[in-house]
């Protein structure tokens, strides 16, 4: 067999058993101080003096108890179950493929806790893809899917690999050869239409590359999910992704104008690129959120915008979470939400503080002290109650300033105090490094995960409180010895509700099966969310992790509708990742 490709740089510079780039990670150095390695982020190379205290106090963990993960053991991998006939035909097409162990393992998982934990424990997976193929364009995908149908091979599309729903896991009961269809080589912008402000883009492109390439021409999509460094356009479409700046640019379903998708029945696409149509139910919506069960998205026409002239961060401190939520609700009511507005609870505020880099000058630390004094002593905010909203404004300068004033005026009505640009900006930087922190936790017996939901406004507070309390209670009942960290933030505002994002972490020492315990607690937390009027998912998707609640969420008939589409489009279950349904 030939055509094994090894020249794809992504895999080389990224961790195979953790989040992000290999060169970037948190660690406690020999002096016991935390630092963030590498050069890629604003925090890179910095010392974070308060992280250790926070870490030890929050989790009852000790930085002395280090646990390093093993290296990849290729022998433990199940042998590749290849379909010779398919392989022959595929070789004939000239599309590159591989069945090397590391290629296969790299594409066998997303970033759920149980997946990363298994990798770090050296346990691996029951089932991994038997081979990986790298189509270069739409036509390659058509060929691969045709061959897969012909030879009854299972295809699992793979984009950025940032799934947190178990969507990339191979079903253990799948007996056919599993081909991971890696879209990473389909990463070009095919054309830009400045008259209509749309661009035709191949679906394999990674978020940050797309943004960089568009920026070169003075444009952007404005779609910035927290995973945008690694996630792909096709993945966004397949999961109904949401970007941080959706208030200005919209979520993925608002941004997409045209989708081309290869299914076992053939290619589906609309005949024109009209901005809105009344042609029955929108077929795009069968694809948006289909999670790789119907086909592969190959090309997307997406709205683009000129890069905003001016951008300004901001932050507001509230005396408590309740006041913060009330303010966000008012902002949503007046429909004046900035590009991004997020409200972090007190736990997350404190966590953010722990990530403050060493201050360089005495003056800065003096100013910091003064600010703290003003807020806690003069204004009487309780440091264990207060919370922070981070803001991002975009647009032309004058409008931004005007907009800013409007938002701060509303905040003032709810007792909010402007807390500076710097705090706001740091909040958004944290978004990108926070994922690296889980790996640090895992080094010291702490498991962590995040999950999200969307909920009507009047239930936001009740949901946050009840879910946190449920987590704490469940952990206690399951023998977790230290109180877990539970934290939430309101990350998106809508007319009728909000998106709430939870972080949850605990020290697992003394537990026989921490992942199982973790999963039970997460399950309970999801039950609690649903019981409190929250949705099954706002933007992470369902994958395999939340399948069991689908029926309850969309009713029997709803599920039947989705099933019948699947049955028509893919009767032989070629796209057999078994997500969603």
């Amino acid at each position, binding site marked *: 067999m030939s055509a094994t490709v090894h020249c794809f740089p992504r895999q080389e510079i990224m961790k195979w058993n953790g989040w992000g780039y290999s060169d970037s990670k948190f660690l406690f150095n020999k002096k016991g101080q935390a630092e963030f390695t590498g050069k890629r982020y604003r925090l890179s190379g910095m010392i974070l003096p308060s992280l250790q205290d926070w870490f030890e106090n929050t989790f009852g963990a000790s930085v002395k108890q280090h646990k390093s993960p093993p290296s990849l053991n290729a022998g433990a991998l199940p042998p590749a179950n290849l379909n010779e006939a398919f392989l022959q035909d595929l070789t004939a097409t000239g599309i590159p493929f591989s069945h090397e162990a590391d290629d296969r393992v790299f594409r066998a998982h997303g970033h759920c806790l149980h997946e990363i934990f298994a990798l770090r424990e050296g346990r691996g997976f029951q089932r991994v893809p038997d081979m990986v193929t790298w189509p270069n364009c739409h036509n390659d995908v058509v060929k691969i899917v045709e061959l897969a149908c012909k030879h009854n091979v299972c295809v699992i599309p793979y984009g950025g690999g940032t799934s947190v729903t178990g969507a990339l896991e191979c079903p253990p009961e799948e007996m056919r050869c599993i081909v991971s269809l890696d879209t990473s080589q389909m990463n070009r912008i095919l054309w830009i239409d400045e008259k209509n402000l749309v661009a035709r883009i191949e679906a394999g492109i990674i978020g940050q590359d797309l943004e960089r390439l568009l920026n070169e021409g003075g444009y952007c999509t404005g779609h910035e999910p927290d995973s945008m460094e690694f996630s792909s356009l096709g993945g966004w479409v397949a999961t109904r992704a949401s970007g941080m700046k959706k208030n200005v640019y919209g979520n993925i379903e608002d941004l997409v104008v045209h989708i081309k998708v290869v299914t076992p029945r053939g290619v589906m696409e609309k005949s024109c690129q009209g901005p809105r149509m009344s042609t029955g139910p929108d077929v795009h919506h069968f694809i948006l959120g289909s999670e790789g069960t119907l086909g592969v998205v190959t090309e997307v026409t997406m709205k683009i915008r000129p890069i905003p002239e001016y951008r300004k961060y901001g932050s507001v401190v509230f005396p408590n979470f309740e006041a913060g939520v009330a303010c966000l609700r008012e902002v949503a009511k007046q429909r004046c939400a900035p590009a991004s507005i997020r409200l972090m609870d007190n736990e997350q505020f404190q966590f953010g503080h722990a990530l403050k880099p060493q201050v360089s000058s005495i003056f800065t630390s003096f100013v910091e002290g003064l600010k703290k004094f003003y807020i806690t002593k003069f204004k009487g905010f309780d440091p264990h109650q207060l919370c922070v909203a981070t803001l991002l404004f975009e647009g032309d300068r004058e409008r931004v300033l005007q907009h800013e004033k409007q938002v701060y005026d509303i905040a003032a009505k709810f007792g909010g105090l402007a807390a500076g640009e710097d705090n706001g900006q740091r909040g958004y930087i944290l978004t990108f490094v926070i994922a690296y922190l889980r790996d640090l936790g895992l080094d010291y017996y702490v498991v962590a995960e995040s999950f999200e939901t969307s909920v009507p406004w009047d*239930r936001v507070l*009740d*949901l946050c409180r009840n879910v946190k309390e449920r987590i704490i209670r469940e952990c206690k009942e399951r023998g977790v010895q230290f109180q877990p960290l539970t934290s939430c933030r309101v990350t998106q505002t809508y007319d009728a509700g909000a998106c709430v994002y939870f972080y949850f972490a605990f020290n697992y020492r003394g537990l026989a099966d921490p992942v199982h315990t973790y999963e039970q607690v997460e399950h309970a937390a999801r039950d609690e969310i649903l019981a409190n009027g929250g949705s099954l998912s706002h933007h992470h998707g369902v994958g395999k992790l939340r399948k069991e609640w689908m029926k309850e969420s969309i009713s029997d008939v709803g599920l039947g509708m989705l099933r019948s589409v699947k049955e028509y489009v893919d009767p032989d279950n070629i796209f057999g990742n078994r997500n969603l349904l």
Partner: protein
Amino acid sequence: MFSDFSSWAVGKCWILSGTETGCHACRSRAFQTCSVSQESGEAPDIIHEEASVILEEMAHRLKISTVRFFAFTLTKAFKTLFQHICVNEEGIHRLQQAIQEHPVVLLPSHRSYMDFLLMSYILYTYDLALPVIAAGMDFMGMKFIGEMLRMSGAFFIRRSFGGDKLYWAVFSEYVKTMLRNGFAPIEFFLEGTRSRTCKSLTPKIGLLNIVMEPFFKGEVFDVHLVPISISYERILEESLYARELLGVPKPKESTSGLLKARRILSENYGSIHVYFGQPVSIRSLAQDKVNRCKYNLVPRHIPRKPTKETQSFVTDTAYRIVRLQEDSMVLKPWVLMASILLQNLEGLELSLLTEQTLWLRGLAQSCGAFLDWPDHTPSAKVVSSSLALHRGLVCVSGGRVSLVLGEPQGLVTPEEALFNRAVSVLSCASYRNQILHVFIRPAILAVAIHNAASSKKDEVFNCFSFLCKMFSDEFILCPGDTVQDFEEACYLLVKSGSVQTLQQNIVVTDRGQSTLSFLNGLLESFLQGYQVVCQYFCEEACDSLTEKQYIPAVRSFAVKLILAGNLRCYEVLSSDMQKNALAALLRLGAVSKVKVADQVTLKVNKLAVNSLEDTLGGRLPTQKAVLARL
């Protein structure tokens, strides 16, 4: 387990954070609710005003000075009336903890007016937040006292407001606001009204529904229910209740009435035991039983009828709590003696009474009774001191103990003599009733064994299940728990060696005869009473019998029977039993209500009533009765 606190600690500090604001918050929300719930075309401001009036009438105004005054007076009163007030302190500690964690609902048993004064008094003494109490409107009629009660935390509700949507909306919002704010525990009586018979009443679920709703809707994480058992050695209202049950109308609650009640201050009422049970978490109970997602699709301020699933959950919980109350009721030796005396109305030797009381003590303990028997006192002394405390009910002459037959002065008509006798029997029965919950399941089984055509287990069960259905208004028997109840009964009787189960047969052992005959005797008056009611319906009831006429009619029917010497059961004169019997007949479809013009009349299916009567008397096998009903 109980610690005595007759002594009174002074100088309590008190926190009443934000009760006032709570009220305001409630007002606004209640109005919102009302305007939405009102589908009539009335103008919003009229509704607003109406709601305002309701709220004024209902709301509590907690004033600490009033509470202090009350506490002071009560201490005096309690000291004169009672020997001891005993409280389980570990229960208080549990309560303290529960109050800090989640909203708490206090659910005391209800046997006396004293109950809620006593509750507030105890919580005050232990420095706990004073409860907000849902009290019946009749208290409000008491001029000065009504206002005082209000100021010590009571809020008043109308006895019935089934049809008044606005009242319901304001009321439920008021309770829920109080619960959500969590400043103070909420207190109400599951039984709805004072039990005149000293046996627990079947729970009313309306209020329980209201306090659970904030949990179902996710407005609070959890709500804790605390069952509280208040046991009186002697109840203040003892003979009052008996007269009331016999149809002497109850005096309206008035301040002067309370003053007259001062007479009772000179009497000794023994001791009171207050047992604070383990807080019950609604969240844990509701797990897998109530799907809270049902509440997602309608805004939470819009009142909704509970679903069937919720309804049955609330009912189950209510029964569970009442049973918990029953289980922790403290029983005095006199309760055992009363049970024996009632089966020997002609009186019995003191020595025999002592002997039987000791025997019954053993049986009660093996059935899990919470008996307060003085350990280091000779049994003869225990018996004699009980007799002394209840000398108004029993007399000992020539070594023979018998019930007092009322005032024998002057000439009395046979009817008056009968009523006097009935008063002492019913008073005595109110003590026997206190132990019924211990024996009720084995007793029903005993009757079932006696009535069943054979000793086959399933036949006995059929009979058992019939009796449970028949008596479900009379005793605390949770609908749907019949199988469990049957098993529990079997277990207890097997444990005490009274029956054996041999290959699907239930056989009475030799030494079990006395136990079974006692248990049969325990239910005898109920069986007879229900049969008399059936007999009345078959023989006397006319077609135009209204609901109102029913009780006096059935009473005079029973009086006739007794005077003619055909009936020796006095308890059938109790309006409580008559009401329960009617409720059973209605439930089983043997009697039905028909609305004619403004009157509700009772329509009797004589065939069905007759067969129920025969089944109760063991003259007809159960199976047939069921068929006849169908």
